[in-house]
């Protein structure tokens, strides 16, 4: 309880920052993926586990690509707000 809307924004910003600073090489080696994921990674929905991992990796990669530049702006604004207004 005691949530304000600002804390949601802060939490979202921190999560997206965490996604943005992931190291792709270590992540991929940890998940055991290789470079041919676009050909063999096609799993229809009947496949039990492959689809979820693929979706997650696609999501992470797309978030990193899209949010790279706006994230810089958001971080600068948030840092300024926190420095000035506490």
């Amino acid at each position: 309880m005691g949530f304000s809307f600002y804390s949601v924004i802060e939490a979202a910003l921190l999560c997206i920052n965490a996604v943005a600073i992931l190291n792709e090489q270590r992540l991929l080696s940890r998940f055991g993926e290789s470079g041919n994921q676009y050909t063999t990674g096609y799993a229809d929905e009947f496949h039990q586990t492959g689809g979820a991992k693929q979706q997650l990796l696609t999501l992470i990669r797309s978030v990193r690509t899209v949010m790279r530049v706006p994230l810089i702006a958001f971080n600068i604004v948030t840092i300024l707000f926190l420095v000035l207004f506490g």
Partner: protein
Amino acid sequence: MSSRGPMRLGKNYPHPPSQQQQPQQQQQPPSQFYQPTAPYPAANNYAGDFGMPQPQIPPSYGGDFNVPQPPPAPSHNAFFSPQTAFYAPPSQQQIPSNQAMPGMEYLSSNPLFNVGLNVVEQGMKDFTGKTVNMLPNEMKKSISSIKYYFAVDQAYVFKKLCLLLFPFRPRNWSLGYSADEPVPPRVDTNAPDYYIPLMSAITYVLVAGLVLGTQDRFTPEQLGMHASSVMVWNVIEICVLCFTFYIFNVQSKLRTLDLIAYCGYKYVGMIAALSSYLLTHSLFVYRCSLLYVSLSLSYFLVKCLRLQILPDTGGSQPYGSNGNKRRIYLLLLVVILQPFFIWYLTRHLIVD
């Protein structure tokens, strides 16, 4: 119970013979409004077979009721297009028990709203030399699709509330469709809406303030805090559920807007549990009502969402094969989150 997919209920609406008397009230040529026969034809089918599908009549839904505008362009021959589903047909307003919610119509059916928009557009054009569309097309589309969820009337609200608190009667849970679009909630009791979740969320904030007041813990900031925490928890829940839907790659008929509506029905249960605590001030009664509300809400959600999340195989394949297991888990996740939230959002108000 046979869980079929969306039933294409073709409704044979008799065109009333008194079509010619209506244009005297409007400035438009007589258009075929939806005239329900009482009782609703769908209400007679209870959890049984539907027999042969009735022929569907696609009448063309004419212009808007109050606003002198050209008829909406998309889905001209749809029975209920999103823009026109909102307005109650004129014959229904003579029946006092079926009046549409008075507050909701003023914003959208006010002709001055459109006039104001046009004036602002004209002003912007004179000022900048180019026309800027004040409401882009996507916003107009989303506004009209949200209007669908507010097309309710009192009979629907009453039936839905009774259903939320006692869903255990055998009945038909499938949604009605007409011309490939879901029928607005005014017609079909099973359709999700936004009116009940919105109003019950606001009522929950007020009831929470009341409970705090009886315990001498009330300050006006508590109301704002409860309201913001309601919104925040809703946002978190919807985000988690949408994320899970995306990760599991589940293609279902359930739209995000529908999911928001279904997740908002728990506030009714919260209000019921809190009011029972208010009346009796006993922890035992509160826990019993919490249990009952959780059970009935879970049953209600399972019955509603089963037809939308799980694929309609018609019973030809056993459950648990193919991708069904993931969908079942997803359904269970949705259903288990609700009682958890009910308990979590009310427990700080209970003091013994």
